[in-house]
């Protein structure tokens, strides 16, 4: 990366004192305050910050798409020589697509599910250029090839739902590229993609940069930012708290928030240290203990023996989702399971929880094949194994407040119909870093991190021995994710939990897991100690995964690039 490369380039965007707010039924709400930005030709500018920090709104305001009820004011807001503050509809329309391409977050919802992708790619061409049908067709295929979509003649006629996540993301980028605009704004272009796909998309972006496109990259993934950006803006609560070249900001951060953000990135280097600046939750001694655990650390607490499960595909063919998977989970251990989406991780979790019956093999809890046991035994063991999913929101009854959600879980496993005490509720809340004031809150009033804390509290309510976390931190911002990961470490120690941690994020797994299973197409391709697997992977697939990971070394608080 040669970030000085275009430093003398022509200024494309210039913004001074941009303020954006929204008129809401509850009054005016300011979201972006005194935002400043200068984008030169060929430069890549990254904006980092947690969700709600105003980074998306600020960039949308650049092309007049902040929203119908948005109030946008600025001292300077110009693209080249055009003052965008006075720009009318027509001016903005000419800017969008032709001068500035905008790649929204999450291609699954950012492409119209009812349109084949060729229509979406043709849209900017129709809007800005007079091209014949044949020219548009040719251009579409050329664009899809450019972003690395194989078989473009076939793909162009497919609908977003028929494409894999990576192809979809590339198709979305192709729609923004259609007229080769000088500026591309990409909002979290790699978020929610697994590591291999993410590497492919990063490759496409790197090509754009190499061709001289100016990129505004919005991301909370510092590894991605470290790889692509020339300059970085750090935003928090609508304000730019720090800005500078990549090496300045990542190598020598000045603001406490930037430092915390850098510290929060989990990786192999962060094993055993806290990711968030917050002090450990003051967790009281558990008031009630589960049944005295057999202190035999030699027998696994949970074991899978040659588990297999097949499903019928939509075409009637049998497809093996879990194929001959065996592993052992010992007391107090964190076992990480990594793999791309579709590798069978979540199906495995369902088999372990006896939510889906397996075709062959066995799931053993302390040597007992509990999913095939009688109902009484099953109920007892169910209380020993809790699960937390990626999106707890959908598993909460929206009408219930936090108190009722936890009470319900407590009552479920209270011995002899013991009514849950208020003290039990408070202990749970305290354990996950919440307090009494959250008892009355409903799920929709909580932030993503708070909701995940409630989900963990609910999982703990039954005094489990085993916690299964299925992508439980994948939807969280890096700083919130750091807090939850720290919390899990605290809880593990406090309640001597054994944890099965399922994630597509290698950094998270390397940070928290003692041992790692790597899954591909339903089978375990590699197993071993976390450090061994990530530092010296033996299987080809694991090697690919590790190689695809954009590395961000925060052990010295400095950025490094592959």
């Amino acid at each position, binding site marked *: 990366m040669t970030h000085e490369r275009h430093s003398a380039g022509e200024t494309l965007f210039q913004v001074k004192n941009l303020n954006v707010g929204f008129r809401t039924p509850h009054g005016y709400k300011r979201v972006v305050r005194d935002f400043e930005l200068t984008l030169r030709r060929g430069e890549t500018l990254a904006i980092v910050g947690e969700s709600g920090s105003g980074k998306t709104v600020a960039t949308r305001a650049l092309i007049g798409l902040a929203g119908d009820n948005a109030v946008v004011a600025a001292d300077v807001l110009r693209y080249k020589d055009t003052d965008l503050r006075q720009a009318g509809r027509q001016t903005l329309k000419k800017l969008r697509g032709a001068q500035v391409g905008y790649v929204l977050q999450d291609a699954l*919802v*950012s492409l119209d599910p009812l349109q084949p992708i060729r229509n979406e790619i043709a849209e*900017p061409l129709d809007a800005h250029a007079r091209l014949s049908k044949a020219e548009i067709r040719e251009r579409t295929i050329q664009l899809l090839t450019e972003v690395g979509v194989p078989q473009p003649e076939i793909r162009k006629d497919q609908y977003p739902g028929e494409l894999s996540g990576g192809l979809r993301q590339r198709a979305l980028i192709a729609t923004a590229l259609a007229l080769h605009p000088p500026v591309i704004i990409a909002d979290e272009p790699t978020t929610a993609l697994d590591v291999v796909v993410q590497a492919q998309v990063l490759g496409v972006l790197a090509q754009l940069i190499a061709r001289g496109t100016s990129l505004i990259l919005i991301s909370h993934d510092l590894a991605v930012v470290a790889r692509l950006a020339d300059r970085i803006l750090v935003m928090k609560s609508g304000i730019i708290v720090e800005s500078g070249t990549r090496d300045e900001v990542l190598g020598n951060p000045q603001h406490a928030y930037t430092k915390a953000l850098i510290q929060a990135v989990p990786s192999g280097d962060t094993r055993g240290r806290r990711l968030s600046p917050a002090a450990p939750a003051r967790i009281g001694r558990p008031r009630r203990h589960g049944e005295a655990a057999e202190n035999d650390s030699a027998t696994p607490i949970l074991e899978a023996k040659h588990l297999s499960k097949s*499903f019928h595909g*939509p075409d009637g063919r049998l497809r093996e989702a879990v194929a001959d998977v065996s592993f052992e989970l010992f007391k107090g251990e964190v076992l990480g399971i990594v793999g791309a989406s579709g590798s069978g991780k979540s199906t495995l979790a369902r088999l372990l929880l006896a939510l889906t019956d397996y075709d062959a093999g066995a799931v053993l809890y302390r040597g007992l094949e509990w999913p095939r046991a009688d109902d009484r035994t099953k109920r007892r063991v169910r209380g020993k194994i809790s699960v937390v999913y990626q999106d707890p929101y959908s598993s909460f009854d929206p009408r219930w407040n936090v108190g009722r959600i936890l009470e319900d879980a407590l009552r479920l496993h209270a011995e002899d119909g013991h009514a849950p005490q208020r003290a039990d509720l408070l202990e749970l809340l305290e354990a996950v870093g919440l307090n009494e004031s959250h008892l009355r809150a409903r799920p929709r009033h909580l932030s993503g991190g708070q909701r995940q804390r409630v989900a963990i509290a609910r999982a703990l309510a039954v005094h489990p021995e085993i916690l299964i976390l299925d992508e439980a931190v994948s939807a969280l911002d890096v700083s919130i994710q750091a807090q939850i990961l720290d919390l899990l470490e605290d809880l593990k120690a406090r309640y001597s939990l054994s944890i099965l941690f399922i994630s597509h994020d290698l950094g998270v797994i390397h940070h928290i897991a003692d041992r790692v299973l790597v899954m591909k197409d339903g089978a375990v391709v590699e197993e071993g100690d976390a450090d061994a697997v990530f530092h010296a992977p033996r299987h080809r697939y694991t090697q690919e995964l590790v190689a695809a990971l954009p590395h961000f070394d925060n052990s010295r608080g400095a950025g490094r690039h592959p």
Partner: protein
Amino acid sequence: MSARQATISDVETSGKRQALLGAGHVLLGKLGQALLTLWATVTLLFVAQAVLPGDRATIYLNVLEGYSVTRTPEELAPINREFGFDRPLLVQYADYVGGVLQGDLGTALQSRRPVTDLILEQIGATALLAVSAIVLAWLIALAWTLATAGRHPALSRIGATVEALAAGMPHYWLGLLLLLAFAVHLDWFPVVGGDSWRGLWLPALTLAIPLAGFLGQAIRGEYEHALGQPHVLSSRARGTDEWRVRVVHALRPALIPGITLTGWALGALVSGAVIVENVFSRPGIGALLVSAVELKEFELISGIILIVSLVYVLITFLTDWLYTLVDPRVSFERKGEA
């Protein structure tokens, strides 16, 4: 997650052939369902005629002679023999089903003419009325939605309120109102509709306005939801014309609930037609049905019910097919899975 992945990869690899096979399978299933529905209707109608209180021969004689008296067995015997009412029920049932299969729905008592002929004479007018009403309703609903939805919140509220009012208007009241205003007062349209084209407007509007209200309510919610979707913002960010954004990306997904509602509405239009055809003195099934009920013409009523059921079944087929046109994700195959 893994299930979704499976769908995607399988669609990618195994291609259209498998999907078509599945579609054929489901199509057969749907055809079976449709036939079952029609068979059940025919059976119910037969049971209603044969088992319900009131001796059929007595009703026949009373209708024929125009007064209600109790008949002696001697009077009834020739009638029973003529129509075969004295045969075992199963034989009569087989006879009835056989007749229906050949398009013979029996004979109307008073006019002594085949029920099939009577219905065929009238059904054209009603079909024309119903189809015009549906087309008008869609035009009104689409124009109203595009004009008022997803713009200023106040405008949207007004739009929704008008829709609710329209949806709640009873046909007889609205029909009279339109008749008084546009035919009597302004004299733009004939008072007696007849079967002229000019006479079609007011009856069709009478049926269309409440339906447009219902359609608008169904479309509006989905349309405004779609306008807030990221893919709409995506399209705007490409510099797409606002009109195209709205029609292509927001209105299209909103058509689905409208289509569902239209299938249902066709049934409701038949009952609406009964009133409207009377208010505007139009020929049609509605008028025929009213006279049939007044005269207790069981065969004729049964025939009309059967025809309406047939139309219903056809419409269901049609709406299923329309879904696949609007939303490529809905194939016969997928619907079959769910």
